[in-house]
Structure formats: C-alpha cells, structure tokens
C-alpha cells in the first residue's frame, strides 16, 4: 500500500492525454468516440483514487453515475453516427461538415 495517490493521478493524467491525442488526430468518428470513453475512464480513475484517499464512498457513487451517463451517451451518439452514415455514406469527421459555416 505504499503507492502514493499521485501515482494514480499520474496514470490517470497519461490516460487522459492519450485520449486527447485520439480525439485530435483521428478522423474516424467512432475512434474519436472511443477516445472520449478513454478520457471518461481516466477521470473515473481520479475519482476512485480520491475516494480511497478520503476513505469515503461518495467518489465511487459518482463514478457509478458517470458510467451510467456514459452508457446513455454512447447509445445516443452511436445512433447519431449510424444515422449520419446512412445519409452521407461516411463517418469521417472531415466530410461531415454541413453544420460548418
């Protein structure tokens, strides 16, 4: 148990950074989506680490709700991607630009 909390936070920070790399560099909407899930996971890890640090379960409950919201978000987001694919036959975020002015 000698691992200090900053190690967990550092792990979470690196995981979050990898997620940001994915969001910024990949052009496939589904991979961008996966990267967002990775970033959510990194934040969850931080919350659980603090929950252990303060010996309280509030952080874990929070992570619990974050997971539920992530499930709902994935459901709606993928439905949107599928609908856009049916309309434009592509999921490349460079080509989905009808909302751009």
């Amino acid at each position, binding site marked *: *148990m000698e*691992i*200090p*909390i*900053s*190690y*967990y*936070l550092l*792990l979470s*920070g690196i*995981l*979050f*950074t*990898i997620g*940001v*790399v*994915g969001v*910024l*560099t*990949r*052009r*496939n909407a*589904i*991979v961008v*989506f*996966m*990267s967002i*899930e*990775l970033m959510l*996971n990194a934040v*969850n*890890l931080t919350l659980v*680490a603090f*929950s*252990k*640090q303060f010996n309280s*379960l*509030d952080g*874990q*409950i929070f992570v*619990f*709700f974050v*997971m*539920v*919201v*992530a*499930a*709902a978000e*994935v*459901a*709606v987001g*993928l*439905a*949107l*991607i*599928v609908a856009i*694919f*049916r309309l434009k036959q592509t*999921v*490349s975020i460079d080509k989905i630009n009808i909302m751009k002015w």
Partner: protein
Amino acid sequence: MSLFDVIFYLFAAFTLASAALMVVSKNIVHSAVGLLFSFFGVAGIYVLLAADFLAVVQVLVYVGGILILLLFGVMLTQRITSVDMRTGTLQLVPAILAVAGIFVILFRVIRTTSWNIVPEAEAQFIPTAEKIGYLLMTDFLIPFEIVSVLLLAALIGAAFIARKGT
C-alpha cells in the same frame, strides 16, 4: 517493492499500452480490442483501490455493454477492409502542441500539489456493494430515480434516431 506494487505497475503499463494501441492502430477493430484491454486494466486498478464493486461494474458496463455497442457501430457503418482513417498531417503539429501543453500542466499540478492533506487512511479491502446500496437508497435517492428517466430518454431517443426512414 511489494507484490502489490508490482501488480500496480503491471496493470498501469498494460492499460497505457492498450490505450496507445487504440489510438495509433489503423484498423478500427484493433482499436476496439485495445480499448477492451484498456478497460480491463482500469478495472484492475479499481481493485487495487479497494473499489471491488466498481471493478465488476466496469467490466460489465464498459466491456460487456459499451464496447459491444461500439463494435456494432463499426459493423454498421463501414467496410473495414477499405477504411480511410489516415491522420491529416496538417493537424498533427497543433495537436501535438496542444497535447503536450495539457500533459505538462497536468504533470506540474500533480507534482507540485501536496496531496496528503488528510492522513492517509489504512486501506480497507472490504466489499463495498452493500454500502453503495445503502447510499443509493438514502443520500443518492433522487439521482438514482433521475437515472431511470435519463436511461428512458436515451433509449427512446437512440431508437428514434437509428430507425429507418424517419
């Protein structure tokens, strides 16, 4: 270095390597597999943080649910053999700069803050599911009920959007 530490470093390396595989892989199915292992690694870290119930929920919801749905999304939206997922080099440089900035800030904050503001509690590896149940039924009752409305909205909305010919 105790066995606990070794397991922590193994899980951390495993998680980060799978996450990196997910980001760099050109094949989207390989990306999904990398994400799967990354979720597993995070579940392992949860166990080390004495959050046993959350580790199980992580495997059930993320690996068993969200990842399956993502794979369905892959199957529904492309022919995997002819995917064009190349990274635009134009955006690579600003992306690297932004990411490096974010990482430096996070690293500085983590290193310079003194986290031991409370004396670290002795880790108690006792099952947490029952306590979470109590909290859900008492302190977090309203969020718990609102979650059902959120899930209902997500279900109806996603089914409506994905339906053909609407």
